[in-house]
């Protein structure tokens, strides 16, 4: 009985979960965002502004915002963090040089009040490229294991082929049950 109620509840209550996609230029944010949409009919009346797409996975609605991740760390970007439940951080696995910038940005975000409750999904993108870092290497460099106050998950992927993206989304949906 309780199960039925829970199911009905989830049907009616398809509340939207806010996701922000961050990462450096050229990491593959846009490609990933539009790969998520691949199997859906895209009926957007185009709007001037940043990319925002709704992704539905197993009845769970995610509203994904591309908010970049600004090189010019201006404090005002924080205003776009409010109510965020998930952060998707896209890492270019080839770009060893800028990994330190990513690390800095990641910890800056995690320390932010509005992101206190957000879970972090890290995509180690471009796994098809020669000489790329593995998810484990990136995890080690970013010292992900030291993050105790946010749920996190790292997923290797290749945005061009879509490999690994579903697993990432599945992790996100599984987190919603936990709440």
């Amino acid at each position: 009985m309780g199960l039925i109620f829970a199911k009905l509840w989830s049907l009616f209550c398809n509340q939207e979960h806010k996701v922000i996609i961050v990462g450096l230029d050229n990491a593959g944010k846009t490609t990933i965002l539009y790969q998520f949409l691949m199997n859906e009919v895209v009926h957007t009346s185009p709007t001037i502004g940043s990319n925002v797409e709704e992704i539905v996975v197993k009845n769970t609605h995610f509203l994904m915002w591309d908010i970049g991740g600004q090189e010019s760390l201006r404090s005002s970007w924080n205003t776009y963090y409010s109510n965020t439940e998930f952060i998707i951080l896209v890492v270019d696995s080839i770009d060893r040089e800028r990994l330190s910038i990513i690390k800095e940005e990641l910890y800056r975000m995690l320390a932010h009040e509005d992101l206190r409750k957000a879970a972090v999904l890290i995509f180690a993108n471009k796994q098809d490229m020669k000489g790329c870092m593995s998810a484990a290497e990136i995890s080690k460099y970013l010292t992900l294991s030291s993050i105790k106050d946010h749920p996190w998950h790292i997923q290797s992927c290749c945005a061009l082929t879509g490999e690994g993206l579903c697993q990432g989304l599945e992790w996100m949906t599984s987190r919603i049950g936990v709440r």
Partner: protein
Amino acid sequence: MQRNKQVAMGRKKFNMDPKKGIQFLIENDLLKNTRDDIAQFLYKGEGLNKTAIGDYLGERDDFNIQVLHSFVELHEFTDLNLVQALRQFLWSFRLPGEAQKIDRMMEAFAQRYCQCNPGVFQSTDTCYVLSFAIIMLNTSLHNPNVKDKPTVERFIAMNRGINDGGDLPEELLRNLYESIKNEPFKIPEDDGNDLTHTFFNPDREGWLLKLGGRVKTWKRRWFILTDNCLYYFEYTTDKEPRGIIPLENLSIREVEDSKKPVSKCQCWRVGSALHFLPGGSLGCGYCVHVKRKKRMIPRKTELCKSLTKLAYFCRVDSDSAMGEEAKLCKDTQLATEKSCAGISQAFET
């Protein structure tokens, strides 16, 4: 002849792959490889796809960023308010959806805006952050994927402290919010030979209330003043105007109209010369009126229909915080008066 053909080919290539197109034009000596020449080429935009222009300007490559800056410098923003300037800027190319690209473009835009309008903002940084916020506001209010639309209060709250640590005047933020809410940024159209050219870069543009010709109710119309003509549209995104009012042979005067929909506004009558003919069933006419907080723009009606009609322009009594709008109204009035002074003089004598 050969050259024209090659330029056309270069444009086609550009539309498919901007970088390759530019390279082709340079290799064939059709375009000089300098930031200014390329910017000029993009700014003129003849035969170019606006999305392709946006893609080129959005690249993170150093040279592309330089071209972006030269491109922005070709725009003239003097005396435009921030949203007007943004509307003009965002018409010249299709803004990419990547936040980082938007960020760079707004930074370049803000520099130019502050250069054209010294003293409007305390710092370029304030202008830049606010411009970015306006883009995000447009996204939130008009992207159908976003269901949770921010209220004006939230918009104001989000922009706390962006003025070098202080707040911007609430009135300013409210006006920006209203402007974007009522009027999303237009998706730029690609270069073609339609009327869009005429309506781009108008002398003045904005919302006015107009008294209907047949049905005597006040309707909100988007007016454009350009080439000595007033054009009006139902929506800003319309390609064809609903009517045109050539401003020659017209006289304009302020009138009292008890039925005007907003009490605290001025009413202007724009009449064709025929208006002064005895026995004319005048006074029906067209009314244009600006709602408070909106910019007023002149509009036009179809000449054939309007010969015996009058147009009224109403405007917000301005001095209250709406300095910009008031100025606009005045300019409109002046332009119109100038244009018709000759005729009405001839008529009266």
